[in-house]
């Protein structure tokens, strides 16, 4: 039975599509064998001329078509050559009349031409199919090699979320067997939120709705809990793939193991946190000593001693601000920035801050355009920090004696604070970046501006936590107009 199956598989031409085996030897053996067999049958049973002709023409035509499709143009051509040889043999052996011989040879040649055309067309068709199939196989292999060697876990699903392809990294990252046909919900059920470490409940539905709306999920952070080792941090991205008609046909999910990166970030955050706390004690001591010094030199005041104690105080103040900035950044990074909300009059707070700033620094004019009385429920200290930061920036980036305009209005249930200056301004491509950590606008400008590039980053985090918005309108050399809004009570 096995032999029959093997023979059937060997004979079946469709089974061999894609194989580039273009030999003529089987065509030679089988066609020659057929001719000999036909000769034996004819000599044994003395077939009628017409029956013999029909068999000779159609049987050999079938062989030529078969070998063309099984072994390409080589197989077909070999069958044509043997067939024509056999035809000439018959003509020479059986026809005695020279006129008939000539006529038969012409017919045979004509038939041979037709056979060769068939062999050529079918043979080339077969070879073309082989080539295309080979290309497809190669492409698949390339894709598999690429998928295998990608540093990230890769999953491809159909439009229902069933896995069609995945690489081995997925199993390593997720610590679970993944195979084709498995639904993506199996993976989403393993994910936990980074902060609370609770399972992500709604990801499955949100994932599908995201895909259907053809939106992309980029670098979403999750945690995978492990029984044997420490938790694994991953980032997950999902891209919907649509056809030319815009219909969802697949999705690509990439999973990156960010555990090492997270651990190093954690160490960095821990260090910043520790360093900013450790700075507080010497700063306290420094401030106390300055006060002691101030008291002791009160008895012999000179302009110089006054100036020195003022400078000492200012520098200690700067050091203290620096420690606060570091601590705030550390709180933000570790998700520990907490708000202590109270209800207060925002217009009064702004007035107090401006009065305090004007007392300290008389180089700029603070002009209040509008100050609508508004009550807000917010963290007073933090909001005060944001206002002070924006006002300080306005002072920093404008010339001495310039005016800074301040507005507080109500807009769509929000308190809207605007601080406008006519300073150096910010190019449009930096309007978003200035709220990023460590980003400082106008770094390339000739004049240097002190600062760590943390103020607006902290301000944005504070405003975001209040459910508000912060943004800027600005053009280089035309000044900046900073706005932020927080919900009114």
């Amino acid at each position: 039975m096995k032999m029959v199956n093997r023979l059937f598989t060997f004979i079946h031409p469709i089974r061999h599509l894609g194989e580039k085996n273009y030999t003529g030897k089987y065509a030679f053996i089988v066609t020659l064998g057929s001719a000999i067999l036909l000769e034996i049958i004819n000599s044994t049973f003395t077939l009628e001329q017409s029956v013999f002709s029909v068999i000779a023409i159609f049987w050999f035509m079938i062989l030529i078509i078969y070998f063309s499709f099984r072994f390409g143009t080589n197989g077909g051509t070999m069958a044509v050559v043997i067939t024509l040889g056999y035809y000439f043999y018959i003509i020479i052996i059986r026809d005695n009349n020279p006129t008939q011989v000539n006529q038969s040879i012409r017919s045979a040649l004509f038939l041979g031409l037709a056979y060769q055309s068939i062999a050529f067309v079918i043979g080339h068709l077969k070879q073309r199919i082989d080539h295309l199939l080979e290309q497809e196989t190669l492409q698949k292999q390339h894709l598999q090699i690429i998928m295998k060697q990608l540093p990230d876990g890769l999953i491809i699903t159909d439009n229902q979320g069933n896995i069609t392809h995945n690489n081995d990294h997925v199993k390593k990252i997720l610590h679970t067997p993944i195979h084709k046909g498995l639904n993506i919900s199996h993976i989403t059920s393993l994910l936990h939120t980074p902060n609370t470490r609770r399972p992500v409940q709604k990801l499955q539905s949100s994932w599908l709705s995201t895909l259907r709306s053809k939106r992309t999920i980029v670098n979403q952070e999750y945690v995978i809990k492990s029984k044997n080792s420490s938790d694994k941090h991953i980032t997950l991205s999902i891209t919907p793939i649509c056809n030319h008609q815009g219909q969802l046909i697949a999705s690509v999910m990439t999973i990156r193991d960010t555990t090492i990166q997270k651990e190093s970030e954690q160490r960095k955050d821990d260090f910043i946190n520790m360093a900013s706390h450790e700075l507080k004690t010497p700063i306290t001591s420094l401030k106390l000593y300055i006060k002691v010094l101030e008291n002791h030199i009160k008895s012999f005041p000179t302009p110089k001693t006054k100036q020195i104690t003022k400078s000492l105080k200012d520098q200690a103040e700067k050091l203290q601000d620096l420690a606060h900035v570091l601590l705030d950044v550390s709180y933000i990074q570790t998700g520990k920035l907490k708000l202590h909300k109270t209800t207060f009059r925002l217009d009064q707070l702004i007035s107090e801050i401006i009065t305090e700033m004007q007392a300290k620094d008389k180089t700029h004019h603070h002009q209040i355009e509008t100050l609508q009385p508004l009550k807000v429920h917010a963290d007073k200290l933090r909001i005060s920090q944001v206002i002070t930061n924006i006002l300080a920036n306005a002072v920093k980036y404008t010339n001495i004696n310039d005016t800074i305009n301040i507005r507080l209005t109500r807009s769509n249930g929000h308190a809207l604070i605007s601080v406008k200056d006519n300073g150096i301004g910010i190019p449009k491509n930096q309007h978003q970046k200035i709220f990023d950590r460590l980003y400082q606008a106008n770094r390339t400008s000739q004049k240097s501006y002190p600062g760590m590039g943390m103020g607006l980053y902290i301000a944005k985090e504070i405003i975001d936590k209040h459910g508000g918005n912060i943004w800027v309108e600005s053009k280089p050399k035309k000044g900046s107009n900073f706005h932020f809004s927080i919900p009114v009570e």
Partner: protein
Amino acid sequence: MPKRIIIIEDDRGVYEAMSILLEDEGYDVLVVPNGTNYAKHISAYKPHLIFLDMLLSGVDGRDICRHLKNDANTQSIPVTMISAHPSAKDSITKCGADHFLAKPFDIDELLDLAQRFTSKTN
């Protein structure tokens, strides 16, 4: 008679400057640089106010505060706890401290506190 203040603090830079400043303001100041034998000093010195650091080497300032507030002889002495961790405020309130100062505190606030608390106690 000048009012007496005890500073229980292990950082030399802080306690030295604090004691000079408070002495300049007219207080009598005793520094206890480690928290181990504070009870003996307090009973002998009878302070009107105690400044107590939260994180002393080897001792938790909150435990000292709890002991002071549970002892009938010392419970009436106002205790101001000092810490570099503002988040510790809740736990400090729970241990019975009368006030909390977050490092780096405002010097005027310190002097104001000293004046306010010492004027209450005899």
